[in-house]
Structure formats: structure tokens, C-alpha cells
């Protein structure tokens, strides 16, 4: 059996910390081990215990958004999974652009947090429904161009279908659904500011065959030249 992934929680509400801990404990495979808890980012540095691979970060600590602290955490070698009550697409996008691996809203926590932590530890993409919503709502000129299939898979996933149902709907396998959604996520990792976490995610996506190196390159040049690619424009 593999070693469990080590995780830390940075959360200013003890009740939420307790809830997250219980989700982690109730995972049948015990795939995640909580090694540190802190009420703020300074506390994470001084907290006892071995350093964690993944930080579950509440975006709002003591009433302040800490999205800008994410690049610092990423540079320090952490993988960050944002866990927040916010579902505003702009905040989700900013968080991912800052180098967070995944975004889990508090409503989605029970179903998605452990999976998101595991994916982050492996540098694999993980797309929650709130993340899919932010990608669908994205109107920025610099947004990546998603293929129609990617767009459709994201839409159905956002709508609340299971990935198996999305597959049936699109007449593709569940695995292909995952591939489309992850590819959309990888395209986002290739945009905006650079971060070691995004590079790692992209490298893993290429390694896993989610996306081809050439796709990223051609996409990047497209993003630089196209002022405002239409939503739903086919990719390459």
C-alpha cells in the first residue's frame, strides 16, 4: 500500500478544521494523513509536525483574502488546494492563476476535498463544479480556447451530472470525460502568470497523455494573437 499523502490545514475556524479532519478520517482508503493544522500562514511555518505535501488553504483568514500568499506557498514547495466559501468565478480564476492546484467550495468539500488533495499531491488536475463554473463564465480576453467537446463536458459536469452520466450523454467513456475536463484545466494552467505548480501540472498532463506538448505551444501563440477568441471556439 502506498504511503498516505500528508496534508496541512490553514483555517481560522476550528469547527471547519474539525470538519475537514473528519472527512479525511472517514476516507475508506485512509489515503490522506493530516499532519499540521494552523490558524494562519505564519502558524503554518511554526506548526509542529513534518512539512505537508498539500496545504488545504481557507482563502479568507481573519476576514482577509489570502490569494496573494499562494505564490509564496507554491515557491516554498507546497501544493495548494483552496477551500473557500466563495464561489465567485473571478475569485476562483484568480486563485488558480496564482498557482493553486484546485478550488473546492465549502459546499463541495465532503465530496471533493480528499480527491482534490490526492490529485494535487500527484500534480494531476482536479476540477470541481465551482471550478467548471468559473471556466464556463470566464470572459477574459486571455482565456484559453476550449474545444467544443471540452466545453460540453465542462458544462454537463457543472450542471451536476456524474462523470458516468456525462459520458453516456456524450456517448464517450467516463475516462474520456475526465480527459476532456482535465485538458481544459491543463489549458488554464498554461495561461497567465507562471508558477512551479502550474508547470508541474502541465508536465504531468503531458506525461499522462491528457494534453500534447504541441497543443500547449500552439495554444499559447493563439492566446497571444487572438484578442478575444469566441467562447466555444474549437481548439486545436
Amino acid at each position, binding site marked *: 500500500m502506498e504511503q498516505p499523502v500528508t496534508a496541512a490545514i490553514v483555517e481560522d475556524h476550528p469547527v471547519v478544521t474539525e470538519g475537514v479532519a473528519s472527512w479525511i478520517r472517514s476516507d475508506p482508503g485512509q489515503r490522506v494523513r493530516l499532519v499540521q493544522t494552523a490558524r494562519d500562514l505564519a502558524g503554518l511555518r511554526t506548526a509542529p509536525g513534518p512539512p505537508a505535501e498539500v496545504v488545504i488553504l481557507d482563502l479568507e483568514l481573519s476576514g482577509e483574502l489570502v490569494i496573494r500568499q499562494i505564490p509564496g506557498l507554491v515557491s516554498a514547495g507546497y501544493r495548494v488546494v483552496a477551500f473557500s466559501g466563495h464561489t465567485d468565478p473571478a475569485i476562483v480564476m484568480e486563485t488558480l492563476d496564482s498557482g493553486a492546484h484546485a478550488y473546492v467550495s465549502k459546499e463541495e468539500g465532503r465530496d471533493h476535498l480528499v480527491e482534490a488533495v490526492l490529485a494535487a499531491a500527484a500534480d494531476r488536475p482536479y476540477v470541481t463544479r465551482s471550478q467548471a463554473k468559473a471556466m*464556463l*463564465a470566464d470572459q477574459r480576453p486571455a482565456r484559453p480556447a476550449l474545444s467544443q467537446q471540452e466545453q460540453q463536458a465542462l*458544462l454537463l459536469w457543472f450542471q451536476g451530472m456524474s462523470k458516468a452520466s456525462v459520458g453516456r450523454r456524450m456517448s464517450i467513456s467516463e475516462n474520456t470525460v475526465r480527459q476532456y475536463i482535465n485538458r481544459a484545466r491543463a489549458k488554464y494552467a498554461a495561461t497567465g502568470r507562471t508558477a512551479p505548480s502550474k508547470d508541474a501540472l502541465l508536465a504531468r498532463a503531458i506525461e499522462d497523455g491528457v494534453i500534447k506538448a504541441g497543443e500547449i505551444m500552439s495554444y499559447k501563440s493563439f492566446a497571444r494573437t487572438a484578442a478575444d477568441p469566441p467562447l466555444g471556439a474549437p481548439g486545436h
Partner: protein
Amino acid sequence: MTAVQPKTLQPTAMMSGRYQRAFTIAVVLLVAGWHLAGAGGQLLHNRTDYGSFAFQAAMWLIMALAVIAGSVLVLHDVPGWRPAWAVAVIALAASTAAAAASPDARMLAVNWAWGSAGWIGVLVLFRRRFTELAWFLAAEAAAILAVQVGDGLHRTDLAGFLALLAWSTGAQVAVAAGVRALRLAAGQAAAAAQSEHAARERAATAEIVQAARHARWLALQESAVPLVAELAEGTADPGDAQVRIRCAVQAARLRRLLAEGDEVSGSLVHELHASADVAERRGVAVEIETAGPLPPVPGPARRVITDAAIAILTAARSRVRITLAAVAAGIAVSFVADTGAAVLLPAIGDGVSIEHQQDGAMLWAEARWNSP
């Protein structure tokens, strides 16, 4: 019909105010002009006839001050009878004193003050009840007559008195009545304009309310009324689950019809929330999410979508996720619900197409509206 803005009421009132002020200024100019040119001219012309020109001039000055005081009163709209009557009485006293000090035999011929006193009365009293001015003018005529009687009243004097009375008082009464009528007319015009505005506004509102009511009534005729009739006749049994579902659907539709009225942006979201309300009361968890800026959806298309929403919300056992997403040419409204079995979805139309898929107990349905 566009909504009438309440702002438009104010200019009519202001317009009436402007007219009234113009009339006041006209009266002030008339009275000042008369005292300066008419009375002053006569005083200078007959200056050698008076026993004491200085006394007559002093009386003229007192009355000039009365004109100024009266003008200030009316131009500043000073309320109350005391200041107005004070000025009037001063003018009357000065006029009577001037008449009494005039040479006995030619009093009426050289009298300059009678006219001025009358005009000052008009100036300060024209805004008050008409009887007040009448009393003042009568008192002034009586005072002059008394002076004349004291000087000795001959038939010719009486004729001269009556001629002067007719000329001067007649003109004053005519001007006062005219100004009064004009002021009244302006006030009435303003009031009429105001009430016309109000009436138009009421009519427009009534029209909108009526149209909305009619649309709701028509919608209810098709569905709620037969159900209520069946319940009343006893042909529909409230103990029957199917009847209860029909009631729940009609309650949701009523709610939606009420929500339809408000023209808020994103009213489809608003209507879906209203539809979700009934399901939530049943203990069904409803989440509504939107992605992207949503285009406005026309009323008939919204109705097809909310009908589908109501059917699914009614059939849901414990949870429904409703999402609205902007898609290439319109909007995709989807429902994921644990309905258990297939749900009979309403007819499509008005640019809306509906697709659905059942996966075990879970229903997925998507209503798409494409902008034409």
C-alpha cells in the same frame, strides 16, 4: 405607455407661481405709476391752490412710503391682515387729511389723494377676500364724502363726487377683480394640469396592472381554476397523492405568476427561485447556480422553462440542482434531480428545446433557448 415621472408635477405648480408673481408685479407698477405720475402730477399742477403745499407734499410722501411698504408686503408674500390693513389705514388717513386740508370750494377738483389711497388699498388687499377691499374703498369714499359734507355739500359737489367715485373706484374694483380672476385662472390651470397628470399616471398604472392581472387570470383559467372546481365538487380527493402534486404545481405556478410581474434583470433566475420555493417547503434542497452573463429571455420562452422547472421540482424527492449557463447562442437551463422515475416534461416551443436523460433515480434535463 411610459411611466409618468413625478418630477413633471412640479413645473406646473411653478408655472402657476410665476404667473401669480407677474400679476403682483403688474399691480405694484400700476399703483406706483399712478401715485408718481397721476397723483404727483395733479399735486404739482394744482400746487398754488392748496393752503399749504408743504402739507400736501408731506401727505404725498407718506402715501409714497405706504406704496413702498405695500409693495414689499405683496412681493415678499407677507401673510396676515395686520400689515396689509396697517398700510391701508395709513393711506386712508393721509388721503383724508389731504382732502380736509384742501380749499373747501375746490376740494374735489384739486384732490389728488383719493385715487392713490384707493390704489394702495387695491395693492395691499387684492390678495385677500374681495369684501375687505370693498369695505376699504367704501370707507375711503365715505371719508371723502364726510370731508365734502363738512365743507358744504352742493348738488354740483355731489355730482362731482359721484363722477369721481365711479371713475376711480370703478377702475380700482375692475383691476382688482381682473387680477383676482387671472390669479384664479392660473391656479386652476395649474391644478387642472396637476390632476390631469395624476389621472394619466393612474390610468397608465391601472392599464399595466390590468394587463398583468388579465395575463395571470388567463393562465389560471387553464390550470388552477379546474383544479379548484374539482376540489369543490369533490371529484378530486386531497388524500390522493396525484391531486396533492397537482396542487403543489399550481401553488408553484401562482408563485411564479406573482414573480413574473417584476421587471428585474435576470428575471428567469428570479422566477426559478420563486418556483423552487414550494419544493423547498417540502424539504427538497434546491441549489441554483449561474455561469456567465445571462442573456435576457423573452416571457413566453421563460414560461416554457419554468413549466419544466415546476414539473421537475414537484417530482424531486430530496434535491434539485438548477443551473443557468450562457451558451453560444442563448442560455442552457439544466436540472439534475432525484426524481426516481421519468418525469413528464411540458411541451416545448417559443424557441425552447428540452432534452433529458434518466440515469437510475437521477434525472438530467436541459432546456435550451436560442436567441433568434
